């Protein structure tokens, strides 16, 4: 209840954005232009994904060589970037596998003996998806592989949560 006795100041700052943009409605042509802008970048997406995957491979190798908080954070960030962007770059399966890798490497697991083979399996799966240009989210082999990786991560986390 002590919090309720703290003074609270509530105020509305000037809406600078509204003042600059005016009151109006959405110009649908702006949306079309933006979608076109993304389409124009699509020719670069595969190259971008390859660069981001290379970064992940390097981060994975660095973690295997020396497992510490810093290399784990680098690995997590590389996986997290792929998780967030790969779907935009038309590689939804990479997002899925990278998401599983994020669960395995986020800061809540620091100090646990992370299974290097499982980390490597995620990275290898992502490399295969890029190599074979698997953009269909329902690709049978890739979805089965992703499901297996997710299951193994869930099992690892469950085991250590219970410990």
């Amino acid at each position, binding site marked *: 209840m002590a919090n309720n006795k703290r003074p609270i*100041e509530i105020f509305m700052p000037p809406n600078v954005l509204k003042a600059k943009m005016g009151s109006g409605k*959405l110009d649908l042509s*702006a949306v079309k232009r933006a979608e076109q*802008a993304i389409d124009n970048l699509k020719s670069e997406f595969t190259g971008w994904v390859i660069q981001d995957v290379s970064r992940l491979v390097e981060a994975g190798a660095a973690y295997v060589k020396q497992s510490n908080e810093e290399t784990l954070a680098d690995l997590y960030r590389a996986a997290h970037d792929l998780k967030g962007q790969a779907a935009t770059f038309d590689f939804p399966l990479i997002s899925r596998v990278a998401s599983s890798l994020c669960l395995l490497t986020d800061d809540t697991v620091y100090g646990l003996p992370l299974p290097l083979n499982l980390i490597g399996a995620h990275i290898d799966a992502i490399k295969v998806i890029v190599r074979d240009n698997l953009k269909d989210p329902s690709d049978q082999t890739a979805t089965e592989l992703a499901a297996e990786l997710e299951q193994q991560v869930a099992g690892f986390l469950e085991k250590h949560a219970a410990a």
Partner: protein
Amino acid sequence: MSYNFDRLRVLVVDDNLHSRTLVGAVLHAFGVKTVLEAASAEEGWKILAKNRCDLVFVDWVMDGMSGLEFSQMIRTAKDSPNQFVPIVMITGHTSLERVHAARDAGVNEFLAKPVSSKSILARLISVIENPRPFVRTKVYFGPCRRRRRVDYHGPERRVEENVIKPGKKSASAA
């Protein structure tokens, strides 16, 4: 009459070049003429200090200072160049715990990855059309964290006599 984006000055802070390029391209396509890009929170802070930005997009997970820490710094640092600038957090995090953490750092809106032109536009419109009042307490400064205007039937937790009306300074206000 439609929105006029061309006078906006937007800062995009993301350590991933590809993500920055994508968000920047979409903003330019909407008509934003000035998109300032920073590859780190530290660089973003310098840009913010030199430019009057109208809106900040910041990625949560970055090398060095995180987007969360950057947002807190904008809201609470004594030398903050722009405490009120609307902040849109770009994030792949979807857990409620993470959302609450960002909200407590003073973030206005979330932009979940993967981003799209529609999701970026939706956040822009939300920031413009649904501005939230700012709240200053001893432990928080930033947009009101009561996100939605809904009929609330529970007990009032803000004690009326402790709510300082707009324009009046709180004794505790910095």
